[in-house]
């Protein structure tokens, strides 16, 4: 990221430095908006639950994607503090769920692999809490226009957010595709060897069997007819 020329020029003005510091602080602080992302392994017929305590009126988003295993699908449900199910999906490969919390309390979300008997899944989820505060504290109700420096900060912030989203998306997609490709490769090798063996066994067996039809324990070497 190229440091805008305006930064160097503006750094000379001591009066407005404080304002800019605030802007940069907001830029950096907002880069890590509240949330957790984890990748976990779900063994077959297992369920994993996570809980988060939230205030009311907070917007939260749950994104999840299955990276590898079986048919790349998982069950997921989200419950509010009263135990009411606010989201439930079965056998989904990836999804994104947003909700405004009405009640204050502990929200639970669970991933379940109970429908699968032998494939363990690797699931990635990202639980984002809260709206991102605007990068400049009073950006929306300003009387004057933003300074060059401030608008540069805003642009950088938006672009970095796009970078984060883009990177995460491509990383997950690539991991999933790579997992499928490795599975395919394994299957091709395994079945090719198996098929070749079957080919040998069947063809040699055919000849042996046919020969055995015609070899009977008869004194004369006439052989059996049709």
């Amino acid at each position: 990221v190229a440091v805008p020329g305006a930064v160097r020029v503006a750094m000379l003005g001591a009066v407005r430095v404080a304002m800019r510091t605030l802007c940069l602080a907001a830029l950096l602080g907002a880069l890590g908006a509240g949330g957790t992302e984890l990748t976990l392994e779900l063994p077959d017929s297992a369920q994993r639950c996570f809980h988060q305590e939230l205030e009311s009126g907070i917007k939260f988003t749950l994104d999840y994607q299955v990276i590898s295993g079986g048919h790349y699908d998982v069950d997921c449900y989200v419950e509010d503090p009263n135990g009411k199910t606010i989201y439930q999906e079965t056998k989904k490969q990836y999804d994104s769920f947003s909700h405004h919390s009405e009640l204050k309390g502990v929200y639970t979300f669970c991933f379940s692999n109970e429908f699968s008997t032998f494939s363990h899944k690797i699931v990635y989820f990202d639980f984002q809490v809260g709206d991102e505060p605007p990068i400049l504290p009073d950006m929306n109700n300003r009387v004057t226009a933003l300074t060059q420096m401030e608008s540069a900060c805003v642009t950088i912030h938006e672009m970095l957010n796009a970078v984060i989203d883009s990177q995460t998306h491509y990383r997950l997609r690539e991991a999933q595709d790579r997992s499928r490709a490795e599975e395919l490769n394994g299957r091709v090798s395994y079945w090719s060897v198996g098929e070749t063996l079957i080919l040998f066994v069947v063809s040699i067996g055919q000849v042996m069997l046919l020969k055995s039809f015609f070899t009977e324990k008869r004194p004369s070497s006439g052989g059996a007819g049709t």
Partner: protein
Amino acid sequence: LALYFHIGEREEKCIIEDLPSDTLVVGNYKVQRWDIRTHDFLESAPGLGMFVTVTTPSGEVLLSKLYGPQGTFSFTSYLSGEHIICFQSNSTRFAVIAGSKLRIHLDIRVGEHFLDESAIQAKDKVNEVNVRLEHLIEQIHHVTKEQDYEREREEKFRKTSEETNSNILWWAVVQTLILISIGIWQIKSLRDFFISKKLV
């Protein structure tokens, strides 16, 4: 703190982190034990600790330490790949007591460099902006590292796909040749057999 989840007293739960090399990972956790008398999780239980084990993609153990009921652990990856972070409590009790479980609060941060806020509160405002800009540049470097790592993985993926493709082609050719040669062998073998049996 952040999200929490439950584990049994002697259970081990692991999470996977796919990291590029030379990346710092910092984790904060807090563990609470369920108390059957108050039917709630105790704020702190004496003697309760947590084994944190970090395994590199090549299988060796990078970090294996016992921490207290609340703590921070960190490690730097030197290989790129899937690192596995496992948590297990050091509780010697078995889950004989019904409903005994532990609650773990967890927050893991990858690749973030933390600003020392107190050092920032310098009188010199220009320096402050300087430091923040440097921090920002470091974060961007982390973005670049992740992208390079992504390139590596995509290359491995492409190799696997090409290997599969050539595998399929090679096996198809081999199997066709085997089919033809076995067919010829079958006919020859049967013909010789029937001739020897004076049927033909």
